[in-house]
């Protein structure tokens, strides 16, 4: 059985920062990433980031991934990176099972940081399983990583930041966006994004939802309908849109299978995107060896995922006795950064969620 101080599951912004922080303090790290490359959701993000300088604001997401990866490669004496390595199971005795290429490997780390991110939510409507109905992340991947357009004309469902950003990226790729609709009466995303899209001529229609896709083997069109104040469809307001892609951007939910299996206590918290692990201020779960970071702890942003990753990395390393002189100051710095990232109206929502899953107040 393979041994290591800290195993990290997931090579997105949270996992990368965790690996960096833990190794900088002297712990040996094994970073596992299911994909063939590191970076997680960052890889397909071609826009410049919000946030402050410490979280690489105004650097494009794709670039942040490269910066972090290069930093880890400079610490190869302590950090081992496995790509094409999927964590399959996390057992009560702390054994982590991994499919590495075609090989089955067992690992016994002293600590585990789970940073598996999130998966896209889905919507119920007639024929919602037709090919041509894609998650927003899928559309981004296809277009920004592979250089392939998802189709000719898209209906975007969801006017949060992701829906707005992906719509803009569709326009950049030369795809027509028929409309962006959202069931809520107001636009969820930042107004800067919304105005940019409206200026490009794409209508953003609030209080509307999609009720049906049609097409035989793939999407040929969609029916949308207006909603009243109680979110009920208003008869007679149906409109047919001629589209070959329906892009679903209605949020993400944490990818927490490993934590359920390990026996971590979980709670359903709508503000955080679904079932999330109960944790303390150092991101330790109710299972002593298991730490968490990133979207898995609650859906936020890459900026907070990076800070959480660093915090979990520092905390896990320090619990094993790896302590640099600046450890206390570093941990405090993470907490301060998280606090400032979670200020403002969006932060209120997250803080309400966090209050429901914190072990220590």
């Amino acid at each position, binding site marked *: 059985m393979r041994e290591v101080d800290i195993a990290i599951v997931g090579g997105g912004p949270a996992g990368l920062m965790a690996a960096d922080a833990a190794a900088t303090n002297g712990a040996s790290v094994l970073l596992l990433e*299911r*994909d*063939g490359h590191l970076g997680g959701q960052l890889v397909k993000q*071609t826009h410049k980031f919000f946030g402050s300088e410490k979280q690489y604001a105004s650097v*494009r997401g794709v670039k942040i991934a490269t910066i972090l990866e290069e930093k880890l490669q400079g610490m190869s004496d302590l950090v081992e990176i496995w790509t094409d390595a999927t964590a399959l199971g996390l057992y009560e005795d702390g054994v982590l099972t991994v499919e590495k290429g075609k090989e089955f490997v067992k690992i016994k780390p002293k600590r585990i940081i789970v940073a598996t991110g999130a*998966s*896209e939510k*889905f919507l119920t409507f007639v024929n919602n*399983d*037709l*090919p*041509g*109905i*894609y*998650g927003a*992340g*899928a*559309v981004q*991947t*296809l*277009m*920004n990583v*592979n*250089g*392939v*357009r*998802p*189709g000719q004309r898209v209906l975007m469902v969801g006017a949060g930041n992701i829906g707005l950003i992906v719509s803009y990226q569709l326009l*950049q*790729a*030369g795809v027509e966006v028929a409309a962006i609709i959202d069931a809520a009466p107001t636009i969820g995303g930042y107004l800067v994004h919304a105005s940019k899209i409206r200026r490009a001529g794409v209508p953003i229609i609030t209080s509307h939802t999609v009720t049906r896709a049609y097409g035989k*083997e*793939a999407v040929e069109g969609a029916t949308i309908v207006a909603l009243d104040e109680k979110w009920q469809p208003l008869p007679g307001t149906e409109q047919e849109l001629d589209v070959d892609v329906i892009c679903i951007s209605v949020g993400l939910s944490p*990818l927490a299978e490993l934590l359920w299996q390990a026996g971590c206590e979980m709670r359903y918290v709508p503000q955080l995107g679904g079932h999330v692990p109960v944790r303390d201020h150092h991101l330790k779960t109710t299972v002593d060896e298991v730490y968490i970071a990133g979207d898995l702890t609650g859906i936020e942003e890459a900026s907070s995922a990076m800070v959480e990753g660093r915090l979990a990395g520092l905390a896990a390393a320090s619990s094993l006795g790896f302590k640099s002189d600046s450890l206390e100051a570093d941990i405090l710095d993470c907490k301060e950064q998280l606090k400032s990232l979670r200020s403002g109206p969006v932060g209120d929502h997250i803080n309400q969620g966090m209050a429901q899953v914190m072990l220590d107040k």
Partner: protein
Amino acid sequence: MLRIEEHPILTFEKGKLVTFTFDGKELQGYEGDTIASALHAAGVKVMGHHHVSGRPRGFYCAIGNCGSCLMIVNGEPNIRVCVVPLEEGMVVETQNNRGDLL
């Protein structure tokens, strides 16, 4: 044509041409494609049919999470083609059943 030729921010350097077959037909993609992106660029949206209802299936998440894109690749069933890199000579087939365990 679904391949992006011009983009204000990104440049797509096409890799080598890669030839593969889809249900016996010869298709081409580029090095750097996943099987799913190569199929999509070639106009293939239906990757299989549900084993009970027979309804068509395409990809949904494109990051290996949802299992909507299972196909038979080089004889092996239940391959998530959205995360598998395209390789020269691959034999890709639609999957309409659960797939046999080898």
